[in-house]
């Protein structure tokens, strides 16, 4: 079933149009990877879906149009974003960062606390460091924290903006394993944008190729990988 669908999504900054009509779909339980070079519009796509920038076109989530919704309404609806460059709150403790992720929840403090403990089990390193300032964590730990924080809003769809940025290949691999596990065990759907084609394509249900604000190719990882021209031009292997 389609969870998220965009149609003719355009967005930009002032006079500059970055997205020139993006049509993508994320089905329930999928990991969809969007690949593209710098400036292709990956982050802009994420920000447009999250509602933190002006956008035109259609964005449908669970069959409802959300292109006019405010960011908090979108988070409440179940779309959480892991912003680019981690975006943890350095002066807050690890645990408080995660509590900030539960900002839109209206249920009891006890159930927020229960979730906190649940994610501490999934991310034991964060549990060890729960009282430390987030700014004192390593890059990999901060990325884990950014994901754990996003999960605290109980999303159905997780938007991951270049989680591998600035991380060692081994850490990136570990991170992608976590995302795969969340997808498998928690039924979390994921839309992930990456430059790191190699690693990301392994876990993708489907892949979109983004170039200067347009989708230039889409299909399963195997299909795109099998196409020689696409592979050489965009995937670099």
């Amino acid at each position, binding site marked *: 079933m389609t969870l998220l669908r965009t149609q003719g999504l355009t967005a930009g900054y002032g006079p500059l149009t970055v997205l020139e009509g993006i049509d993508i779909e994320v089905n329930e339980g999928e990991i969809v990877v969007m690949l593209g070079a710098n400036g292709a519009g990956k982050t802009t796509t994420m920000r447009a879906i*999250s509602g933190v920038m002006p956008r035109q076109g259609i964005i449908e989530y669970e069959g409802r149009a959300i292109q006019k919704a405010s960011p908090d309404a979108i988070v409440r609806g179940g779309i959480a974003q892991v912003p680019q460059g981690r975006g943890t709150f350095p002066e*807050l403790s690890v645990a408080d960062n995660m509590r900030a992720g539960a900002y839109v929840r209206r249920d009891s403090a006890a159930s927020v*606390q*229960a979730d906190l403990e649940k994610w501490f089990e999934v991310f034991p390193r964060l549990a060890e460091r729960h*009282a430390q300032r987030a700014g004192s964590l390593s890059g990999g730990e901060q990325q884990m924290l950014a994901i754990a924080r996003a999960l605290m809003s109980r999303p159905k769809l997780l938007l991951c903006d270049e989680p591998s940025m600035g991380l060692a290949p081994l850490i990136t691999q570990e991170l992608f394993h976590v995302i795969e596990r969340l997808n498998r065990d928690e039924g979390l759907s994921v839309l992930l944008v990456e430059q790191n084609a190699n690693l990301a394509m392994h876990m993708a249900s489907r892949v979109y190729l983004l170039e200067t604000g347009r989708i230039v190719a889409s299909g399963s990882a195997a299909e795109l990988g099998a196409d020689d021209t696409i592979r050489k031009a965009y995937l670099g292997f």
Partner: protein
Amino acid sequence: MSARIIIKSGGRASWAIRAAAAAAVVALLLWIPTRGSDSLIDTCTTAAMLMAAAMSLNLLLGYTGQISLGHSAFFGIGVYTTAIAVTRWGWSPFVTLPVAFAVAFVVGLLVSLPALRIKGVYLALVTLALGLVFPAFIKWPKIEWLTNGSRGLDQTGFKFSKDNPTYELFGWNPWGNLRGQNVKPFYFWVGVLMVVFVYLVCRGVVKSRVGRSLVAIRDNSTAAAVMGVNLAVTKGIVFGLSAAMCALPGSLSAIRTGTVTPDSALLTVAGSITFLVIMVVGGSGSLWGPVMGAIVYQFIIERTGDWSDPDKIPGAVRPLFSWSDVAPGGGIFAMALILLMFFAPFGIVGLWHKLVAKVVTVVPKPAGTTSLVREETAPAES
């Protein structure tokens, strides 16, 4: 550093320390108005007003990272709301406090509208304009019928009379009264109550979900937005609250001095800078920072008040300050500010934390304690 003291957060030792600190504060608060000299009481009352103003600024700048150089205007709104209501309409001075709070809240909300779109230097300039315009606005000929222009207003405080009640407890009276001779302790307690109120509001805001979202906005406003924090509403309300709380010491100032003029120090931009410096010296982004900053500031000012006469300067430091024609209190505080920024960028409170951390280890609570859920599941585990 082998002999470290280890304290468990939430443990018995930590509670004992808190209780001892609270008892010391209460004892000091009772000692000042009953045993202290009149000038000490005055100093402390002024310090309390500066505390409240700096705390209100701290809520805005220390926690949301929005700078304001216009807080003197909110202070002034408190001053003039009280002064006008008392002199023109004959209100009781205390009734004007919540009114000043409300007026400043609304003005703060309005000012926050441009503040939603700009930050940093630009916001500093917009609020600086507010601080500059306020005294000029009070002197505007078209509203002179209300504010009495640059001549200011008189009789803005209480009317003392022998018939006013006293508030003795079994013959012991630490509170003062409004009969005219013993009025300083009374203002002192109003000041203390105001600081407690402002502290509780700040604490309530800071330690809550809203407080986390404020720090989140300051640290990374995009990440805060995708977390679902409504930036506009949160910033606006905090700006309003901050402005409203800054009006309270303004009101007390009008009540206490009994006269107001638009050019008195705290109503001009100099007042904004004073609040800002007190906050930074004390430690921005910490609840106790402005309290410490205001105490240190006011005591330096009072202690050095007569140093314009070189003979009054203690011998040891006389060569340093005897060249000055004016009291060097502000200059000393400025030097303290520069030194602090160098050695303790998080102010007096930050310095204190640093020193304590050298000898004491505070063990935080383990993850996920004090939760209902854990207590419920605990029997099942054992």
